[in-house]
């Protein structure tokens, strides 16, 4: 059964639509991430799910219940805020128990629940403190504890990690993932951090300008993006976009690139059938950095793999691998090489291009053309 269904939701503040017909549906126990640049409408959508903002048109369903016009307090939702929004005048224990108190849960049950949650989050020693006496990471845990205590049908996380430093962020990310796996909760999570989205989500909705650009699993989003925006937004370093011309025959379409020696090379295309009609057109080739590597012996036999002499402009060793900035068809291209492969800036290197997951976009609209 779908835990949350958003049907054609529109939000309008009077001057143009903020959200232009959102359709999303997730199953019970799924982890949905809303991701997109700031101003894309993801926080508005989350507030609408919470009932903190009205829906201009469309419906929001939880299970079978239409909650579009239901008050936030009656939706059985808990939310973790970016600023944590802990009640500063109450102790940690009181913060966690507040929602239960309002729902008139008897005192001893409240105490039990506080204890359970505190144990789960390892904040037992903090229960008597005030939020002002806690560190950022501790506040984060308390905020999550407050949400967990009510055992709601749906959890909302509004950029919960963006106020933490880099190390703590990674730690809490793991913590949230563990909680989700252990408790089987349904979560909607807003972030602008695409790494968070990739690591945490079962389903991702990539949003821009009030429209869901793509809704799918992390793998679908990463390997099979709907358009150039999604392809560019997800992944770091970002996907390379190389302007190129399609050539070859209808049975074996190729794409033309100029190598370091000035020679035009034909690279194979994974889905010739879809691109046959575009032969001779200028398109945008999308290729992830990890698909341009040093020659790998085990891949030599792959028909989608080609050797290409490429000019090395800059090298950036990161330890685990070496990022190389090169050039193809007049555009800078990021490549990800093994750390032991020796390259010299300024010289040409023999690199291997794997076209098996290459994608193609229309030059004008940025839409996928090879599906």
């Amino acid at each position, binding site marked *: 059964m779908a835990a949350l269904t958003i049907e054609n939701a529109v939000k309008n503040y009077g001057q143009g639509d903020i959200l232009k017909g959102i359709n999303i549906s997730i199953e019970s126990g799924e982890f949905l991430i809303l991701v997109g640049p700031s101003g894309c409408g993801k926080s508005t959508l989350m507030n609408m799910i919470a009932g903190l903002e009205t829906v201009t048109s469309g419906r929001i369903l939880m299970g079978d219940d239409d909650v579009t016009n239901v008050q936030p*307090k009656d939706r059985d939702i808990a939310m973790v805020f970016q600023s944590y*929004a802990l009640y500063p005048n109450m102790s940690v224990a009181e913060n966690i128990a507040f929602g239960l108190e*309002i729902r008139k849960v008897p005192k001893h049950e409240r105490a039990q629940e506080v204890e359970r949650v505190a144990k789960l989050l390892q904040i037992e020693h903090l229960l008597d403190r005030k939020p002002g006496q806690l560190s950022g990471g501790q506040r984060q845990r308390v905020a999550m504890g*407050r949400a967990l205590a009510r055992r709601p049908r749906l959890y909302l996380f509004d950029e919960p990690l963006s106020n933490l430093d880099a190390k703590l962020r990674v730690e809490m990310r793991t913590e949230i993932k563990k909680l989700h796996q252990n408790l089987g909760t349904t979560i909607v999570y807003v972030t602008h951090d695409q790494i968070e989205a990739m690591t945490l989500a079962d389903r991702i909705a990539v949003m821009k300008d009030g429209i869901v650009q793509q809704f799918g699993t992390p793998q679908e989003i990463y390997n099979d993006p709907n358009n150039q925006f999604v392809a560019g937004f997800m992944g770091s370093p970002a996907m390379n976009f190389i302007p190129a011309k399609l050539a070859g025959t209808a049975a074996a379409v190729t794409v033309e690139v100029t190598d370091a020696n000035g020679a035009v090379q034909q690279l194979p295309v994974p889905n010739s059938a879809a691109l046959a009609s575009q032969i001779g057109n200028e398109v945008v080739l999308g290729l992830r950095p990890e698909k341009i590597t040093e020659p790998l012996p085990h891949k030599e036999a792959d028909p989608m793999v080609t050797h290409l002499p490429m000019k090395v402009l800059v090298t950036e060793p990161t330890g685990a691998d070496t990022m190389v900035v090169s050039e193809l068809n007049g555009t800078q291209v990021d490549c990800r090489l093994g750390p032991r492969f020796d390259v010299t800036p300024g010289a040409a290197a023999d690199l291997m291009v794997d076209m098996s997951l290459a994608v193609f976009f229309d030059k004008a609209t940025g839409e996928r053309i090879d599906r």
Partner: protein
Amino acid sequence: MVEAPMTVTRRAARLGLYAILAAVAFIYLMPVWVMLITSLKDVEEIRSGNLLSLPSSLNFDAWVTAWGSACAGSSCEGISSYFWNSFQIVIPAVIISTLLGALNGYVLSFWRFRGSELMFGLLLVGCFIPLQVILLPMARTLAFFGLANSTPGLVLVHVIVGTGFTTMFFRNFYIGLPQELIKAAKLDGAGFFFIFRRVVLPLSTPIIVVTVIWQFTQIWNDFLLGIVYSGAETQPVTVALNNLVNTSFGGKQYNVDMAAALIAALPTLIVYMVAGKYFVKGLTAGAVKG
């Protein structure tokens, strides 16, 4: 911080600075000092000495007279009953206007509705109109409801005039609280008054103190509304003081005038000494923000 070594010119400059500050402090303190020593002299001493000459002995007769038997207008019972009148006006007016202001500020910050911003704007402008433009209709309204010359009438007028300011104080304070706090409480299932009582009010102590002090001084020190709307029996102390000083019945008793003035000033001065920090906050609220 490392202090730069003091050169001779620098030290002289510092000395000059302190001298100036002390001289100015003297000027600011002088009027109240003069009031105090004048109130402790008898009439003969006032005639023979000058403003700053000290009284030969501590003589509290003038204070006793001012409190209990000086003539203000037609009655000669001192200003004691008017002093209590002022409290009867000030206490309910401060409580009601502060409560209204807190609720208004809460709504205007966290429960906005269509037109609530406009309302706040109208209220702000209302704070700054000269009271003269509402005096006459207000008098007619009070008379219509049988509240003319009565203490409840005066309380009502002070609430009407003061709510704009109290709302502004609370609104400006609440707008600085995180909105997410209220969202969290709403999701926790709390309603309008529950959030106000349990989440917002416990955070409001500083602004409540500022508002109460501000309203207390404003209403205690009011003269215009007092003289227009009070009756002979319900006059606040400022009106009575003015009558007392301007009653030329027999010889001028400056010592009694000064004692009465000090009595009238005492409550706000005490508040200022005890909670001056908050008083300054009240004065600067909004003005610096803008």
